């Protein structure tokens, strides 16, 4: 691989031949965080406290203190996040190989189905149909489920709770196993607040995407945005979690490189 490749990329980036698409939601206290049943401990929401802003607390500088849970905003799930991945090697934010933070992305457009049915489930059949049009999902790729959920700016609509819990789209168990066992993907990403569907607590097994992806050492990305700006194939995803010692995940600035 020649050094020219990278300078060619730099040139394309500067000239606009390669677009950089921001796949991240803005981190703010207004962005909703995951809600667990109240008997469990909860993920801390994102909070900002000003240290100083050119004032008596610090006349020449502005800065903030931040607090948040590891799984806040657009964020990365490491394998250790789930009990099925707890004993795997290199399963934490500080030990995952950095090369895996940059990888090709396949985007499965489920936006029409998700608009019709908030509980839409992506199946292995859907994935095969996608492959018939766009080619086989390559090993080591991210598979991103586009639902246009990120366009729901109202937190109530984004969370979409009723008395039976959350209603958001996601993959079913067979789709996840297909991606892990037959396509050897790097991970699965969604625009919703989890890689699993809102009702996945009732699935058999519960939370199949977390269970099977992390059980196989694969990753998760959630609360992604702007997936509609990506081509079905050909984009490169850059998503590097903070290097937290034994961290289970972290907010990321997820970026995609795409050509037109």
């Amino acid at each position, binding site marked *: 691989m020649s050094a020219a490749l990278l300078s060619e990329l730099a040139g394309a980036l500067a000239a606009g031949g390669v677009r950089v698409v921001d796949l991240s939601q803005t981190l703010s206290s207004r962005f909703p965080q995951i809600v667990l049943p109240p008997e469990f401990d909860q993920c801390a929401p994102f909070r900002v406290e000003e240290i100083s802003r050119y004032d008596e607390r610090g006349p020449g500088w502005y800065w903030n203190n931040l607090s948040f849970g590891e799984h806040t905003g657009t964020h990365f799930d490491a394998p250790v996040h789930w009990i099925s991945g707890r004993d795997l090697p290199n399963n934490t934010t500080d030990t995952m190989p950095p090369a895996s933070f940059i990888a090709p992305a396949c985007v499965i457009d489920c936006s029409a189905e998700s608009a019709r049915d908030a509980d839409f489930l992506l199946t292995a059949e859907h994935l095969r149909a996608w492959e018939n049009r766009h080619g086989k999902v390559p090993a080591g790729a991210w598979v991103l489920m586009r639902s246009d959920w990120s366009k729901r700016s109202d937190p109530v609509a984004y969370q979409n709770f009723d008395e*039976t*819990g959350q209603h958001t789209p996601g993959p079913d168990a067979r789709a996840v196993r297909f991606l892990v066992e037959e396509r050897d993907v790097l991970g699965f990403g969604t625009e919703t607040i989890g890689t699993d569907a809102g009702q996945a607590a009732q699935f058999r097994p519960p939370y199949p995407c977390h269970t099977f992806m992390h059980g196989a050492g694969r990753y998760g990305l959630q609360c992604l945005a702007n997936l509609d700006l990506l081509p079905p194939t050909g984009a490169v995803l850059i998503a590097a979690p903070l290097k937290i010692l034994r961290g289970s995940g972290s907010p990321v600035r997820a970026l995609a490189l795409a050509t037109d």
Partner: protein
Amino acid sequence: MTPALIKPKPRNPVSALRLPTLPPPARSRSALRLTAAAAEGRLELQHCADCGTVQYPSRSACVTCLSHRLEWRETNGAGELISGTVLHHSNELYYRERVPLRLGTVRLDAGPALLVHLQGDCAAAPSRVRVSAHLDKSGQAVLIALPAEDTANMADDPMLREMTSDPKFRKVLVTDGKPAVGQAVAMAMVEAGADIVWVGVAEPWKQAPGFDALTKLKQIEIVPLDVTDEKSVEELAGVIGGKVDILINTAEFHRTHTVVDRGTETARAEMEVNYLGLLRLAQAFGPAMRVRAAEGSAPATAWVNLLSIHALSALPSHGTFSATKAAAFALSQNLRAEMRHAGIRVVNVFPGPIDDEWNQLVPPPKLAPVALAEAIVAALRDGIEDVYPGDVAQDIVTRFRESAKVLERELWDQ
């Protein structure tokens, strides 16, 4: 007419879990005899051995002749409901959550007047009813009147359901589904209307006759579970621990090993499954079940342990096995004491020899796995705590209560 129970909806995950509360558990020592009989499904009241008076509440002397010779005898619960009320208010947390609630006064044909819960289908007073004794959520006996004739959905009455653990619409874990007993229990749970039956399998490469047919049922889900492996138990609990409503521990290791046979490996293996397996399950699954004991219309309700009648009195020809079952029995009694705070019923099943490959040389009668499974379903439906299924178990428990020492001697040669 009691409406048929409808399948409970998933719980609203953002609302607070309803925490378990208990009806008042305090009883006098004498009244605990009512509990002792109810634990085995019988209504027993005090009968005066001298004048025959049947009395309730329990006393320390006969109300008629002052005799102290009072015997607890099985009593016919037939009687007349002479007055009824609907309670709309109670000072007790448990009942505040369960009003309105029917109570009545029943005059038994046998004599005494009883304050009882009323199953919803009992006709207004005056009417004929049958009184039975059941354990309530606190594990103590209370009386409930049922209509004289069975009604369509009688068991779905909310107060009766507080006293029973019907598998209908519940999620059940059978800890070892490979052997014939585990298969029969899993099948019986499906037939009893369980919503999901998770069937634990320890060594998936081992084939067992009949097992494939079981796996084809839509209610059945095979899960990896090896009770000798703490990690395996914890991982399964991590996935389904928050959903199991009834846990049936069928995992058993049984060899014909006497005390003086050389080596401790068999005894250790038996202990690993029969005793430590139960301990691992209790630690991994017990806490979550306790928290979920009041969740919705079909909450976590029961834990069943497959013991052996020789947990009561050892069978020397199966010496090390008997010892592990005695240890498991003691553990299960303690588990019961710890689960009572949530009202989770711990059911102990004490079968005689089961008709399986580890009792080949034991002469009949032996208990068929299907009969054992039926006994477990019946115990859950009837709210029974101690089950002695089959003729051999009944024979041995009767002899044990007559004289433990005589039984010990007689078991030497069996």
